[in-house]
């Protein structure tokens, strides 16, 4: 097993662990901590995959902006930030559904090439040319989504005077 593979294994285990922990801890603020680690961990995986631009983006948007947004959400909806969630039982059905989903996805593992190959890396310039060139419409669409989202979200959270 090569070093890269070992690194991936470790990062993957951390990702799974932090994601699980984020959902299972009973204090929401701890959740935010775990999820932040999760985002950072994924960023590391992107670097491992030779996608540095995405790694940086992940750090900036997810580990930064989204995490803070979530924290903000918690703070505005709670009177006390460090309060525990009520314990909710976890029924067998959701777990089973999640596990079976995983099993179905895992059934595709067998047909993928098993051998290790070199990861293809891309020049960030090529990426930007692709993003703003032929695949430009995706960004335009993202712009429309953001326009709608921002306009609506601002309207919603703004205290009405009526």
């Amino acid at each position, binding site marked *: 097993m*090569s070093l*890269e593979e070992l690194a*991936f*294994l470790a990062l*993957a285990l951390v990702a*799974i662990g932090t994601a699980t922990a*984020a*959902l299972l801890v009973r204090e*929401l603020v701890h*959740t935010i901590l775990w999820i932040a680690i*999760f985002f950072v961990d*994924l960023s590391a995986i992107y670097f*491992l*995959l030779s*996608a540095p*631009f*995405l790694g940086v*983006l*992940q750090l900036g*948007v*997810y580990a930064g902006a*989204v995490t803070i*947004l*979530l924290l*903000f*959400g918690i703070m*505005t*909806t709670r009177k006390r930030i460090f309060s525990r969630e009520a314990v*909710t039982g*976890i029924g067998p*059905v*959701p777990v089973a*559904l*999640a*596990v079976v*989903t*995983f099993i179905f*996805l*895992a059934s595709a*593992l067998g047909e*993928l090439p098993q051998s290790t*190959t*070199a*990861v*293809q*890396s*891309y020049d960030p310039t090529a*990426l930007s040319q*692709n*993003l703003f060139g032929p*695949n430009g419409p*995706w960004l335009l669409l*993202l712009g429309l*989504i953001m326009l709608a*989202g*921002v306009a*609506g979200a*601002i309207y*919603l*959270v703004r205290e009405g005077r009526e």
Partner: protein
Amino acid sequence: MTDLSLPGFLALSAALFGIGVFGILTRRNFILLLISIEIAMNAVILNFVYFAAFPAGTSGLSGQSIAVVLVGFAATEVAVGLAIVLALNRLKGTINVARATELKE
């Protein structure tokens, strides 16, 4: 360059997706729901990134482009979700989705 194999990544994203699904199905706090969705969304982005790194064709560059767009999209989604739930919280005083079951049957 870096040598890795594909199945491990698929297993990771499958696991993350499963965790996300699990969260969506079991968590009642809306913030946790959002986090679950983001975990699953990260599985998606991860998918695009590693499929870009192990392209089925000659180049998987557009996979990375998609990943970039999706990161932006996911952030917007979180903002919208938060806006909705904050408005709901203002009226109901809770963000527990189990308390929002007025509409049923």
